[in-house]
């Protein structure tokens, strides 16, 4: 029998490197475990009906947030005396009287002529097959009107203080002022519901972790620091290969195979979970049917769709990407506007049939309630990761709100969403949504610790504080296909670090 020592000097075969006793974890890197509990706040029933009216959504939102808004307004304006007049609370929007100082709570409605309106389309007989998506809804020449609405009626809001606040359709506010001669309500002051009560860390997990964290502050310094990686807009595409090299580097980085052993053990193995926040598949570039180029002529349509225009490559690439990471890294996958999930908000999980290789890491059929290693979730998505309550979306809610104003301050709008207590106020006005009738999940009942929005043009983040000591870390996750950046969140200190990958 030939022994290894005999042929070792030939240079072809080599014994495995002896472990250097100075470096730790020399043989196999172990990834830190992830404590994860995903909530089905936004899951819709499979047999859902569509007979309901959308007015139920506004009614549910107003009923749930109105008590909180009125409480804050009462505390602020109870003793206000302006010009010898006491501010009185008025029950309904139409009960305001001219010349009387009063305050009332209701829903904001932005009357903008550039907003897509079904009534306009019907009245002008414009039967466009696909709704045109407009860049922005605000009009430059001041034709926009802000109205306050509740079940009794609407009243127009005017006044200087309105310019200091972000307002979109669907946020619940309380305004103090009086009705002027034109029948409009002149606003003197404005109040929101502000941040909802925040649950403590580990609120939904087992008791032993909770008791440990009760003694110390919420931040546990002795625990090993874990990181959550959040990436968005991976954009696997069948046609464009501009960033495919960076995608490979990303895969190696997340699988702890890149760089040297020291960073692998210190940083990369500390990543306990990856969250992919939408747009994993690039937007389909459809060929122009009117072009004269014979090669791009659409083929005959069978059963109403052109089967040859479907390109399976993007989802195959995504599947192989996931299946190489999944053996060692749990992944949470959110659908985005370009992903194969339903187009209305809240998007339901991407079906496991899209991932022939990765679906084995999904939930086991015998335990359908426990999320598997690959957790395909809804968009928006609420869960408890490492004890922190996390709320995340793939970007549709923020992008839609940004169309309502000029030069939107995205981080400021994220903060405004938390203070309005509504994660998608423009649903169903300009954001397509399911007609909820019994309960509307967009109202934030509990304040999250971490709120991220994906598919944004630039990375940004800040921490906001609430009146009861709530602290929320807001993150704008940039599109990987444009910026090549991954966001890492430290689960103990809630500090962020951004990793930019480049393949040179």
């Amino acid at each position, binding site marked *: 029998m030939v022994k290894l020592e005999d042929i070792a000097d030939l240079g072809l075969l080599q014994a495995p490197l002896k472990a250097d006793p100075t470096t730790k974890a020399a043989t196999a890197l172990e990834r830190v475990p992830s404590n994860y509990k995903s909530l089905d706040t936004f899951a819709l029933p499979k047999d859902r009906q569509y*007979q*309901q*009216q959308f*007015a*139920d959504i506004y*009614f*549910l939102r107003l*009923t*749930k947030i109105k008590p909180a808004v009125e409480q804050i307004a009462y505390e602020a304006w109870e003793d206000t005396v302006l010009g010898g007049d006491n501010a009185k609370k008025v029950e309904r929007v139409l009960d305001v009287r001219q010349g009387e100082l009063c305050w009332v709570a209701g829903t904001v409605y932005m009357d903008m002529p550039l907003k897509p309106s079904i009534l306009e389309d019907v009245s002008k007989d414009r039967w466009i097959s696909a709704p045109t998506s407009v860049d922005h809804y605000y009009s430059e020449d001041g034709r926009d009107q802000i109205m306050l609405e509740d*079940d*009794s009626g609407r009243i127009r809001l005017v006044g200087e203080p309105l310019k200091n606040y972000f307002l979109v359709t669907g946020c619940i506010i309380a305004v103090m002022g009086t009705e002027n001669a034109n029948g409009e309500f002149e606003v003197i002051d404005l109040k929101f519901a502000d941040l909802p009560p925040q649950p403590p860390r580990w609120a939904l997990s087992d008791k032993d972790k909770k008791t440990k964290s009760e003694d110390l502050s919420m931040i546990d310094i002795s625990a090993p620091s874990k990181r959550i990686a959040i990436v968005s807009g991976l954009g696997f595409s069948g046609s464009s290969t501009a960033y495919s090299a960076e995608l490979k580097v990303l895969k190696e980085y997340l699988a702890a195979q890149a760089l040297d052993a020291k960073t692998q053990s210190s940083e990369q193995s500390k990543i306990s979970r990856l969250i992919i926040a939408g747009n994993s598949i690039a937007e389909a570039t459809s060929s122009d049917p009117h072009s004269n180029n014979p090669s791009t002529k659409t083929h005959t349509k069978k059963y109403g769709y052109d089967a040859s225009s479907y390109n399976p490559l993007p989802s195959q690439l995504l599947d192989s990407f996931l299946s190489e990471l999944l053996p060692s890294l749990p992944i949470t996958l959110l659908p985005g506007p370009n992903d194969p999930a339903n187009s209305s908000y809240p998007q339901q999980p991407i079906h496991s049939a899209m991932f022939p290789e990765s679906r084995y890491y999904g939930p086991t059929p015998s335990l359908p309630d426990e999320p598997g290693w690959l957790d395909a979730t809804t968009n928006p998505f609420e869960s408890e990761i490492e004890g922190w309550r996390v709320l995340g979306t793939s970007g549709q809610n923020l992008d839609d709100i940004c169309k309502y104003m000029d030069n939107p301050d995205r981080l400021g709008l994220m903060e405004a969403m938390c203070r309005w207590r509504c994660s998608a106020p423009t649903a169903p006005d300009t954001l397509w949504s399911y007609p909820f*009738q*019994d309960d509307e999940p967009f109202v934030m009942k509990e304040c999250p610790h971490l709120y991220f929005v994906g598919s944004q043009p630039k990375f940004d983040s800040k921490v906001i504080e609430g009146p009861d000591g709530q602290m929320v870390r807001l993150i704008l996750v940039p599109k990987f296909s444009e910026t090549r950046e991954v966001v890492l969140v430290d689960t103990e200190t809630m500090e962020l670090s951004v990793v930019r990958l480049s393949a040179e």
Partner: protein
Amino acid sequence: MRGLSALKSCKQPIQHITILRTHTTSATFSPTYSSQDLFFYGHSDKQSSSHFPVPSLNSLTPITADVTHRPLSFSPSPCPQSPLTFTTPTNNQPDKAAVMPVTRRSTRVTSSRASSSSANNQSKLNFSNKITKPLPSRTNSKDKAAKVEEAIIRTTATPEPVPDKVKEQQEAVTKLSPSEVKASKVSQAAINRYWKGIEDSRLAKEVHKKHTSGLSTGEKVLRYWDVSSQFGPCVGITRLKRWQRAERLGLNPPVEVLAVIVKEGRGEERAHLDELLNSAAVGERE
């Protein structure tokens, strides 16, 4: 009473009367007779295969006799809508109402055919088991329980646990929530008092009473519930579900409304406004 409602829904009884008048010459009967009589007597000889009970000449003799003496005692109470007055059967003759066949316009045979049916003895199309008019489907909880029972008997192999399961399913179907139990204890007098309180709070008198003359207090209470917008929009949701949603949100909807819904068994009804707005629904044409 079921028989009378079937009478009101179809227009045949007037046709019956014209047939009688053409055939009987010596009949001196007063207009106040019961069509119940007609059906009963016509039923005795079933010569025509159609369900339409044709009163033949010989069966009419009891009517031509002394009108006041009737084998069946009926208390005359005029029906306000039809031009001819019908008498309603009393409660001690419920089986007669069951005997009376339920006829539909589509199953009605024209008068000419009816008169010649006995003469020609032609075979007729049997409409007895075909209902060509779509009927309003009422989800009867007992039917549901019966269907569930059938399914269980078919699927379970062992016969012994079946009766237990059937009982469980029936209990689950008929179980009421605590607020519904409380609502069923609300008396009719309490509901009337509630409605009177609403009416008294209005400043102006009711001007057009004719629009609400045919409505019971329960119906008025429910329509007021529909337009109470503080409990949400009434279109696109059943009244019961709207009440339960209002209670869940803490709006304190009045328990009298739930009492009317539960007592009159109108759990699946939508708002009256909803039916008007969705007037594409099937209805009878006059």
